[in-house]
């Protein structure tokens, strides 16, 4: 506790008279500064205090204080505390200094506020549209409060934002957005010399549904159902992140039993995801046995989910202030038996896979990412841990019941496809151990508490470690207890930029394998 106070004090002192206003709340310090001081102060936090970027939020606060606001949320894992830098941007000068040139992780965030809020990052090295595919004919910014929905937006210069190759030996290979398999849409453009990829451009955001806009004005109960549907395979993670943001804002602690049951559902989610993903990676090099065994085990887990909660992908299990579905005694036995079977079953698959020479040969040294790359681009989750970046917010920023459970964080150094599959395999066994612990220590008691009215315009954060990495949700409610602004930064949003870095240098046929080894979701990235 003391080191935390000391560190915050030191940071505040460093800011000196550049600090306009500082506010303390729950686990967060909000530092309001002038926008011209932004680069210096962010670099100080980033480089000298070891803070990492958690999320960045642009907000139209003209109704509250006549200006736009930008929130840069950093987390200092060491002291488990968030440092938020807040700047105001005036309407008649909608610009702010860019940080992307020094900290590449900001690249997407700054382009996103440009597209959706019309705030320009001055000095951004390549400020092409991110969410919109092309340049807007007339300026329309959906996240501004005065936006009127008119249906289709019109764009020009559709395809000009790709790298152009001038050498005669470079072949351009466009792939997607409609793919051969039943996967989500994304457009990839390779510049290849012979068989080797020189450069990869990825264009995503085909499934941008405007969920953040849609959430504005919804009651918290209604919002829960939409947030569960941001993506399909991280339902519990997103729902819990939202519930935690609400609970932090309302200042309530959920009952212990509810915290344990939440943890159980989150681990069940991780389990079916990882088991399925290990199988899926095999499809990347046509290893049918691994693929179908993984699919079979995943299906069994999905059926277990359905039996326990009524939904294969665990929707409708999380409530604000707790959980909606309790666990009965006979169901505990059912889970235990299933896990005992899965344990040996999955061990067989792991043995087959890791002892198969051709399989290992395809995965080794493929799609390699260095620790420097994942750190600079702020990758999270399995992709980060496979390259030696030791972050896992279940341990670093414990939520639900994770601080009462014992588990190890798996870290590998190599950063190739093999390392990523190994992290997943070990995390499967970890999850099984975690679920056994949860079922053993499951406390008795209530499963839900009431949520009082939330103080208007207070901001709060919720986060979870999904199977793909950390999801971070940012919430602000208005006077009527309805959502004023909601920002979802999913694991896929942080990890897509590193995919484009991992591919160059590999052969074209390895791209599906590399892509699968990250197993990123398009829809929760695009929202």
């Amino acid at each position, binding site marked *: 506790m003391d080191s935390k106070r000391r560190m915050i004090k030191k940071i505040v002192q460093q800011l000196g008279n550049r600090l306009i206003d500082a506010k303390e709340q729950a686990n967060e310090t909000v530092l309001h500064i002038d926008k011209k001081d932004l680069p210096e102060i962010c670099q100080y936090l980033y480089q000298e205090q070891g803070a990492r970027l958690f999320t960045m939020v642009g907000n139209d606060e003209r109704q509250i204080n006549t200006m736009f606001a930008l929130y840069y949320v950093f987390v200092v894992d060491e002291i488990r505390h968030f440092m938020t830098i807040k700047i105001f941007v005036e309407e008649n000068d909608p610009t702010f200094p860019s940080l992307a040139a020094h900290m590449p992780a900001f690249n997407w965030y700054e382009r996103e506020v440009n597209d959706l809020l019309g705030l320009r990052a001055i000095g951004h090295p390549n400020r092409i549209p991110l969410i919109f595919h092309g340049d807007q004919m007339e300026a329309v910014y959906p996240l501004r409060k005065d936006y009127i929905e008119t249906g289709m937006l019109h764009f020009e210069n559709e395809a000009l934002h790709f790298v152009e190759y001038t050498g005669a030996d470079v072949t351009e290979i466009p792939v997607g957005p409609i793919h051969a398999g039943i996967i989500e849409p994304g457009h990839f453009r390779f510049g290849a010399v012979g068989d080797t990829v020189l450069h990869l451009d990825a264009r995503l955001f085909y499934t941008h549904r405007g969920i953040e806009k849609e959430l504005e004005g919804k009651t918290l109960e*209604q919002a829960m159902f939409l947030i569960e549907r941001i993506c399909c395979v991280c339902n519990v993670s997103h729902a819990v992140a939202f519930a935690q943001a609400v609970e932090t804002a309302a200042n309530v602690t959920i009952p212990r039993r509810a915290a344990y049951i939440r943890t159980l559902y989150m681990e069940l989610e991780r389990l079916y995801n990882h088991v399925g993903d290990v199988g899926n990676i095999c499809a990347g090099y046509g290893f049918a046995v691994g693929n179908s*065994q993984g699919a079979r085990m995943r299906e069994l887990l999905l059926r277990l989910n359905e039996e326990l909660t009524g*939904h294969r992908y665990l929707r*409708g299990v999380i409530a604000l202030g707790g959980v909606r579905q309790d666990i009965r005694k006979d169901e505990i036995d059912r889970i235990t038996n299933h896990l005992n079977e899965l344990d040996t079953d999955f061990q067989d698959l792991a043995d*087959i896979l890791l002892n*198969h020479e051709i399989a290992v040969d395809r995965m080794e040294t493929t799609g390699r990412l260095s620790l420097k790359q994942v750190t600079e681009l702020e990758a999270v989750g399995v992709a980060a841990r496979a390259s030696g970046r030791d972050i896992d917010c279940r341990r670093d920023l414990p939520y639900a019941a994770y601080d009462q459970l014992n588990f190890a964080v798996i870290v590998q150094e190599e950063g190739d496809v093999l390392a990523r599959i190994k992290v997943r395999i070990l995390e499967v066994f970890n999850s099984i151990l975690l679920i056994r612990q949860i079922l053993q220590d499951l406390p008795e008691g209530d499963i839900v508490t009431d949520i009082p009215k939330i103080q208007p315009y207070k901001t709060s954060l919720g986060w979870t470690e999904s199977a793909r990495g950390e999801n971070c949700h940012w919430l602000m409610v208005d006077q009527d207890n309805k959502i004023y602004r909601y920002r979802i930064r999913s694991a896929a949003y942080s990890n897509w930029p590193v995919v484009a870095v991992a591919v160059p240098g590999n052969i074209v046929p390895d791209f599906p394998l590399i892509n699968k080894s990250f197993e990123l979701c398009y829809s929760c990235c695009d929202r």
Partner: protein
Amino acid sequence: MFDMLRKIWQVGTVTEKQPFEPAPKKYRGKIELTAQKNTNWEECIAACPTGALCMNVNKIRLFYGNCIQCGNCVKICNTDALTQTTDCYQAVNAKKDLFISVDKDEEK
């Protein structure tokens, strides 16, 4: 190689033939709507997060296309007018088949 063959042999065939077993008891399936007197329709409608359940003059309408089968309306309903089944076969040939409605004050 042998461990692979052994696994394939041990597992055997896992694909299943229709008809499948019914969905588990907890499965939240299709909502059934029947006319019942003294139902607190206003509260049911207010509880619906998607607007699938709505009132149109004297008719209560349910549009399956919007219903996410969350069961909120069933939980809040004071009669048996709304019930949740475990039926998961809900495909129809035309969109109009997704609308059902009952009269507000009529007894079945």
